[in-house]
């Protein structure tokens, strides 16, 4: 018997709030006929206002969606409605059947396309490797531009320190222009950090200047650094490694438990972060996925479930970000619903260890266990009766924090989130029955 997704997970796949709402109306059996699932896919026909029903298929592993409706939203309300129906009323979507012909056709076609894409990826990686001389020339050219950018940034930072951060004219604005210079210098990582300076509280400015100075300085000597730390510096400055290239390297196969997910939308792109932890290796991993407006990011894994798969990690002193390679089966319920965690003191020690290896680490994915969320005049805290961690909001909306308080009800809970020098930012909480709740929206 496959594990059906939680309502929350299904709703998290929706590209926007109207889609969620429309899907809710399609979540009862009434408009559906010919529904079924074989554990890998769902299918069904949904009666709309027209004479022919819409044909909807969902492939559960990726997940991927197909619907004959004309919606430009992706996934559409029919796909979401079918998922809701399946998750909430198992009897309404009978298991074990064969897909209808139209569903089977699409699923087969899709599988072929996926295989072709994998082949193309491999071919591309091989092509890149085929002309190492050209690749090296390109890399050297870019390195030089980034180095010049980093040097300029050091001068700019030092200038402002010379004049004083309290000097509003010099210290508090104008970083946008420098950020543009960093983009020109092909150092997008530096550009992002520089842009943030305009929004940093004055009390925190020196710390941010110092860390940015450290990064720019480190890039100036990147070839002298140990290889892993050098990779960290390159990644933070803005060098990326192609997924295909990573996947040709070593991968880690494990049963990866999904600890949580957070979407960060901006006007052009929604970034989805998915945190995993290997059941065998205990390694944390962070996957990123992206979606344009009106489209959900292309990767979705249900929090709490376990996926047997191979991951390739981006190189670095403290590898965390990874890409998803071969999957071995669909996500499944975890043996231990609630992940094992640490105390607040251990969590901070763990973050400290991460900083020791990669000084620019802002936070480290951490499972806290046995903590009670407390709301008082100073804001939100997490306490285990011995120590207290400040809860760092980091854009978390108020309702999410109250959801955390409700799930806890003043009793200790297990909490996944990011532990850093600003505090702990929660992502997922497990209730007394071991069910995860997302706290990010």
């Amino acid at each position, binding site marked *: 018997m496959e594990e059906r997704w939680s309502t929350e997970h299904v709703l998290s796949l929706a590209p926007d709030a109207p889609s*969620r*709402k429309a899907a809710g109306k399609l979540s009862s059996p009434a408009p559906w006929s010919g529904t079924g699932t074989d554990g890998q896919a769902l299918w069904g026909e949904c009666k709309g206002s027209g004479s022919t029903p819409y044909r909807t298929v969902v492939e559960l592993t990726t997940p991927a969606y197909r619907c004959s409706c004309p919606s430009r939203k992706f996934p559409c309300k029919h796909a979401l409605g079918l998922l809701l129906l399946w998750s909430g009323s198992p009897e309404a979507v009978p298991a074990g059947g064969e897909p209808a012909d139209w569903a089977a056709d699409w699923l087969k076609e899709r599988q072929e396309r996926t295989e072709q894409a994998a082949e193309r990826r491999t071919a591309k990686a091989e092509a890149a490797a085929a002309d190492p001389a050209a690749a090296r020339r390109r890399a050297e050219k870019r390195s030089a531009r980034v180095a010049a950018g980093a040097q300029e940034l050091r001068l700019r930072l030092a200038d402002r320190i010379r004049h004083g951060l309290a000097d509003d004219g010099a210290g508090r604005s104008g970083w946008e222009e420098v950020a543009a210079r960093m983009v020109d210098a092909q150092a997008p990582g530096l550009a992002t950090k520089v842009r943030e300076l305009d929004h940093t509280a004055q009390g925190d400015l020196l710390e941010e200047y*110092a860390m940015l100075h450290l990064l720019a300085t480190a890039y100036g000597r990147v070839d002298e650094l140990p290889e892993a730390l050098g990779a960290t510096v390159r990644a933070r400055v803005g060098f990326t490694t192609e997924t295909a290239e990573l996947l040709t390297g070593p991968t880690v196969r494990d049963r990866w438990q999904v600890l949580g997910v957070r979407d960060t939308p901006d006007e052009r792109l929604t970034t989805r972060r998915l945190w995993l932890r290997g059941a065998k290796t205990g390694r944390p991993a962070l996957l990123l996925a992206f979606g344009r407006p009106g489209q959900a990011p292309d990767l979705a894994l249900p929090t709490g479930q376990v996926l047997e798969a191979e991951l390739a990690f981006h190189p670095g002193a403290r590898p965390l970000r990874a890409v998803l390679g071969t999957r071995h089966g669909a996500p499944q319920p975890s043996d231990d619903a609630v992940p094992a965690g640490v105390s607040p003191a251990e969590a901070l020690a763990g973050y400290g260890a991460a900083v020791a290896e990669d000084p620019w680490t802002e936070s480290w994915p951490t499972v806290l266990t046995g903590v009670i969320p*407390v709301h008082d005049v100073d804001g939100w805290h997490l306490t285990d009766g011995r120590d*207290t961690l400040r809860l760092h909001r980091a854009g978390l909306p108020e309702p999410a924090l109250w959801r955390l308080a409700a799930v806890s009800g*003043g009793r200790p809970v297990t909490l996944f989130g990011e532990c850093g020098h600003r505090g702990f930012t929660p992502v997922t909480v497990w209730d007394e029955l071991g069910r995860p709740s997302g706290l990010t929206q």
Partner: protein
Amino acid sequence: MTATRTEPAAQADAWEELRTTALLGTDRRPLPAPAGSPALVAAATAVDRTDPATALLELAALTAVRRRAGARPGAVQPAGPAAPADPRPELPVAAARRLTVLLDGRSGSAGGTLANLTELLPQWLATARARGLRPPAALLPALLDSARARSELRGDAVALAGPLGRWLAERNPDWRFVLRTVTDAAGTGDPAVPTSTGDPTGTGDPGAVGDRAAPGDEHRIWHEGLFAERVTHLTRLRRTDPAAGLDLLRGTWTTERAEDRLLFLDALQDGLSPADEPFLEAALGDRSKNVRATAAELLSTLAGSALATRMAERARAAVRLAGTGRALLVTPPSECDAAMQRDGVAPKSPTGRGERAWWFGEIVAATPLRTWTDDTGLTPARLLGLPVGDAGPDGSGTDPADGTWTDDLREGWARAAVRQHDADWARALLGPAPRPGRDGRTARTAGAPAKLLAVLPAPERAAWTAAFIQAHGLGEAFQLLGACATPWTPPLSTAVVAALERAASSGTYPWSHSGVLGMTERALAPEAAPAVEALASDAAPDTAWAETFARLAGTLRFRAAMLAELDV
């Protein structure tokens, strides 16, 4: 930034030195000397100081990384008491999903093939509450937010939220209304939904947890609480221990403001008994006119009260059975004396009707209905059938059939029937259910039929309304339907569907029935779905009625699924 961090003072000082220098600028202030732990001093000493600005950044980087790597948790903070356990079983998965969807649908409207989901939320809440279920904790904030925005949801939402809801409300000022909401059976919700659930765990209504507050607390809420909290507290107390509630009110009565006295007095409706009479009698002498009127109204519903007896005396003086029981003769009061005014009759007619008619109506409305049947030995129906005439100046009566006071008398009886919840009188006043083909729009029905209907038992209400709709269609049925319990009984639903069919075939437009249609989506029995679907397929395609029926059918299916999910 420093709340999670407890660090040695020297290290904190060193950081402050660097920060001050950075704020002023290295042009104006020299670099601080290395300080802190020996390791930090050693590292700081190694920094190249040729350019002070660069050196400051390096020192700051050194110190910042050290601070981050060495961050320590803060000292323990008291966590406070946990929420009391909630023994109710949790919602089934599908029902929890439905609640998520209904709460999610609270903003905007997507239009389309179903009723607005927000309209179905009240029914979902009432049903879930009646089933004695508990929502998953993670859904409570959204539930409480909805109830905050829509006060009509509060009774059921607060009861459903249970002890955890109260615990949250004590911590989040946005949800303070939870502490002011009375949730026990009589106060709120749909009359059709049984609110006492035969709770097998014997814990009673979890919404009433506050009733078990320590006596000291009660005292505190009454003396220090916000006004709404005090009303809630008094109402709760009246439902469990009316005498204690009265004592509490009596204790502070003379110090309360007039507006507050009025609403506190209103709260005495719960658990009203002869024991309250002396207090209410005294309130007849209150400075505030509204307080006096409310006290009089409460006393008039206490059948054995002195006020009711005084009113009955006045009524007997005003109405007399004449012609050996074949007519009623009316002698309305000629003045509103001080005693009448003290008993709550306003000397000036607020409606602009004749003053004598007004005084007369007030007296009849405040007279125990039993007075009439006991005095005459006639049933309400017989009394209503008698001609009514003016007794005339000599009291001998003019034409007893002139009907001068008929409407005033019936109006007064109707008000009394509603006030005293007298089903026999309400039934007699409404008359038999109208029958098609006859002009049963009983010119004789006095008062507001919807109010009289509300006095009758639910099945009778539904049957009467169904008959009314069969006879008269939907045109005037809106308020009557509103008085019926939801979901409507199958016969009432059938009558409504048939009336809609007639409306569709008679060429009217759906939007001329939009009020009834909106109610229908919430209240029609789900069993009516096949009939509505048949109407949808019979209607001419792409017409407004086809769309209306299709939407109604879809909504019924949705409601049927929604309610089925709550069956455990």
